[in-house]
Structure formats: C-alpha cells, structure tokens
C-alpha cells in the first residue's frame, strides 16, 4: 500500500494547514509589518514609517502604565496563586498522615477539590460581571455589605486607583487557585510513596515533608505553573475589560497592554500603533518565558 501514502498525507494536511496559515500565521507575520506603518482608519492608505511607532511608545505614558501593571501582575499574581495552591494541594493530598503505609489527604479532600476547581470552568467575562456586584463600592456590594455588618466603612474596591489593580488580581487568584491545586495534586501523586514513608520513618514532621521533600520534588510542575501564570499576567484582558471602571480605569490605574491594543485598534482605529504595542507585548512574553526557563533550570530528578 505504498502508493497511496503521499496523496493521503497531502489530503489530511491540506485543510488544517491552510486554515492555520490563513488565520494564524499570516496575521502574526502581517502584525510586524503593520507595526511599522502609520495605518489609521479602515480605508486609509498606510505608509511605511519604520520604527516611529516604537519611538512614540517610549513616550506614551499609558503604555508605561500598562507595562508597570504587567510588572505588578507578574510579581503578585503567580506568587500568591502558587503559595495558596501548594498549601491546599499539600493539605488535600499529603497531610492526612499515613494509612496502610500510604500518604493520604485530609478528610473530604475530593469534595474540596471539586469546589476549588469550579471557577476555572467559568468564562472570565462572566466572572468579571459577577465580581462587579461583589465589589460594588457601597453597602449593596457583597464585601462592603459584610464589612458594614462589623462596622467598617465601605471600600471603593474598583474605584480607588490605589487598590483597583489589587482587587482585579484577587479575582484572578480566586479563579486560578483551583487549577493549580489539581495540577500540584497530580504532581504530588506521582512522587513515589516510599520517599514519604522513608521521611516519616525518620520522624519528619509535616513542615519538613512540605518544605524539604514535596517542594523540591515538585519543582518541574511549579516551573510550568509559573510560566502559565506569567503568560496569564500578560493577558488579563477580559477581566480588565469587563470588571474595571472605564475599561482600564480609574485613571488608567488598571489598564494592561491587551486592553490598550484593543482600544487603540477598534475604538481609535490606529492600527499601526496598536500593532506596535502587540509587537512589544510579544517580546515581553517571549523574554519572560525564556528567562523563567533559564533561571529556574535545575537538574531534573528522575523517579
């Protein structure tokens, strides 16, 4: 049956490759081209202006505000998420002590895992609308309503520029933790039981088990988590677009690059400038991923 091989290969690859090249590859390539034009307005005739858009980006305050926010996101969001998720994963999988020579999780761990993962299946846009009501700045919001019961003044979660970004980060953490609990649980269950047995025999307590054994052996999974969360920190579009005041406000205190790209392109029709931001975002994401892989590289433990 050799003759049929090439027609078969071509037949199977033609449609997916065509679709992929038209809708994915060609836009990515064109983006670099468009970023060097002054394309404004749907019908305008774009001209090549070299790196002028990028020079303008350097003086654009909103651009720098967005970059700063990515910095904050990148520092706070992955760290908080991973710490909480690791803690819960440990409780759910390993903290129940030993039973029949095996490490067990805490009582009810299956139910907790189902609940924790739930936000992950909800659309970010839906979650954004949900938290608009939770965060309302007066007693009608859930959090301020609760705070009111204990006599605390309402907090302007989303309208106070100092805390608006943190409020949004809190929602990202709320949604992400469950995913990483499940991810870390999978990692923990692949650690051989005899490692824990040996440690417990030697009298290692829960803290030793967690810091000296679990974390080192989970390093690969944590690295993956860090990269995933870092990439999410360069997105945040749907949440900022739906949840924040004035889409990135108040006073641009929550705006992010994807938000500015979308606004610049589809509200202001400055396609060249928006693409330049896209290119900047691309290089930031790539740099982050490459740096993370380099810095966190360790000798891989095989078991």
């Amino acid at each position: 049956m050799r003759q049929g091989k090439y027609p078969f290969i071509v037949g199977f690859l033609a449609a997916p490759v065509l679709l992929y090249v038209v809708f994915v590859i060609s836009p990515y390539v064109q983006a670099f081209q468009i970023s060097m034009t002054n394309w404004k307005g749907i019908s305008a005739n774009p001209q090549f202006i070299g790196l002028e858009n990028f020079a303008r980006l350097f003086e654009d305050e909103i651009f720098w505000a967005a970059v700063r926010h990515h910095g904050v996101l990148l520092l706070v969001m992955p760290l908080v998420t991973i710490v909480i998720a690791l803690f819960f994963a440990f409780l759910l999988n390993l903290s129940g002590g030993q039973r029949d020579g095996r490490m067990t999780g805490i009582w009810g761990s299956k139910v907790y895992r189902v609940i924790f993962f739930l936000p992950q299946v909800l659309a970010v846009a839906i979650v954004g609308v949900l938290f608009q009501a939770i965060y309302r700045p007066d007693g009608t919001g859930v959090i301020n309503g609760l705070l009111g019961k204990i006599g605390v003044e309402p907090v302007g979660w989303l309208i106070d520029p100092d805390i608006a970004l943190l409020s949004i980060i809190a929602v990202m953490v709320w949604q992400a933790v469950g995913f990483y609990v499940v991810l870390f649980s999978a990692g923990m269950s692949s650690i051989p039981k005899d490692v824990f047995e040996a440690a417990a025999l030697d009298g290692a307590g829960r803290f030793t088990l967690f810091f000296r054994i679990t974390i080192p052996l989970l390093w690969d999974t944590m690295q993956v988590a860090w990269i995933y969360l870092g990439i999410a920190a360069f997105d945040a579009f749907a949440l900022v677009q739906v949840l924040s005041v004035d889409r990135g406000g108040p006073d641009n205190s929550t705006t992010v690059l994807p938000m500015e790209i979308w606004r610049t392109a589809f509200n202001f029709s400055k396609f060249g400038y928006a693409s330049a931001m896209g290119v900047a975002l691309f290089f930031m994401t790539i740099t982050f991923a490459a740096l993370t892989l380099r810095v966190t590289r360790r000798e891989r433990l095989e078991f």
Partner: protein
Amino acid sequence: MTTDTAHKPDATRRTAPARAGRRVRNPLGAFGVLAHVALLVWAILIIGPILWTFLSSFKTNTEIFGDAITLPASFGWDAWGRAWDKAHIGQYMLNTVLVVACSTAGTMLLGSMAAYVLARYTFPGNRLVYFLFVSGMTFPVFLALVPLFFVVKNLGLIDTHLGLILVYIAYSLPFTVFFLSAFFKTLPTSVAEAAMMDGCSHTRTFFQVMMPMAKPGLISITIFNILGQWNQYLLPIVLLSGNVEDKWVITQGVANISTNAGYEADWPGLFAALSMAIIPVMIIYIIFQRQIQSGLTSGAVK
C-alpha cells in the same frame, strides 16, 4: 529515583520506628482543625459569590439596592423570563451552542488528522509543519488581532458565525495538534500495520482503527476545546463587533447586559442572565469533573 537528594536520610538514619508507629492513624489535632478551617474558608469564598448571584436573581431592584446580605422576599422567575426573552440570553445561548459545536467538531477532525499524519508518517517537511503548528502556542493572540480582523473582513466573514468558527478552529489547532500527536505516538504501531496488511486504506485505518484507540486522548482534548471556546470573549467582541446583536455569543451578551443594566436598571435580570450562563457549565462540570480536571491540566503534565 536515581538521584541521591531524597534518599540520603533513608540510608543514614533509619532509627525511629517507634515515632512512625504513632502517626499511622489520623488524629484530628490542632493542625487538622486549622487545615479544615482554611479549606472551608476557601470553599466558602468560591461558593459564596456564585450562590449570591443565584439568590439575587430572585430579588427585586429595591432589594438589590438594599442590604446585600439578605435573602430575597419571594422566589419568582420573572427576572429569568425577562433575561431569556428581552435580554436575548436564549438567543445568545443558542448561538454559542451552534458555534462551539461546529468549531469543536472541526477542531477535533482537522486537529486529529494533522496530528496523526505528523506523528505516524515520515515525509520531507514533517518537522517544519509540526513546528509551525506548535509555535502558535507561544504567540499572544493580541499580536495578531489587527491583521486577523482584516483577514476575516477581506474574506467577507466578519460578523458571521462561519468566520468565528473558522477562527476558533485555527487558534485551537496548535495545542490540539501538539497534544494529539504526542498521544498518537504512544499508541502501538502493530494494530495499524495489521489493518493495512488486511487491505485497509490509510484513511480507513485512521477513522476505524486509530481514532477508536485514541479515545481517551480525544475526550480530554475535546473537553479542553469545548470549554475554551465556550468561554472565549476576545475573539467574539472583535469578530462580531458590527451591528449584529442577534449573532452574539453568551459571554458577549452577558458582558453587554452588565454595561446596560445601569441605564435600564434591570439588575435582577442581569443576575438571572449570569445564573443562566453559569448553570449549564456547572452541571456539565459536576457530571464530567474528573475528565474536565484531567483534560484541562493534561497540557501541563506530560
């Protein structure tokens, strides 16, 4: 375990069997209590907002603008009816089901075809095509946004479901191909060879022999794609941005109601719409939670 890091204590001082004996059972000490409190608090943080949304859909506008922490006075379904008809949630839901059904089916068909060929056949350019697909996972969609809009527009597919479906398929291919080609490589070659020996064509071997064998992998990635495409927000607001409200998908519709709720002042309707968007996903999640958890995390644990 081939390295020595974790084994050292085992070899050096195995002297405390008495202490190990004590921790065989699981006493609910101070640590256990604290652990349960922490887990319970987080569980409430997750359930609370969702439950509150459901309850708010039964409240009246006055109740919603009163104390946030009260139960509704009566349970009526008015707001749900309004959200379904007047706010077109029914229409958006139907649109989303249609789009996601077509795009997931398309993604699975085209993705598994490409993955199979790339995993099981050697031909010049195989690696090139594979890396072309896989590289798509590393680029931020926002980079492609402007040109993508014009590509779709120039094909006359802007503001159409077909355009959205094709774009969903194209952007789901990188991960689908990456995941499935790894999966096809793990399947034994002997069955396919036997089928070919019996005179089965390449195409028939794929559909009747390989596809059934790859079922676990296909299920995981199908769930992954359904959820990803159901929850997509950016692509619809860019590609269905014209005056085509009747074509909107659910995320777009709910986000838009939330912008309008302030003016039209139908807050219960908004919460009913939110509940309607959440409930089907929640039901599916509870039924398939095992597959969904493994499907969504399978990308990370190779």
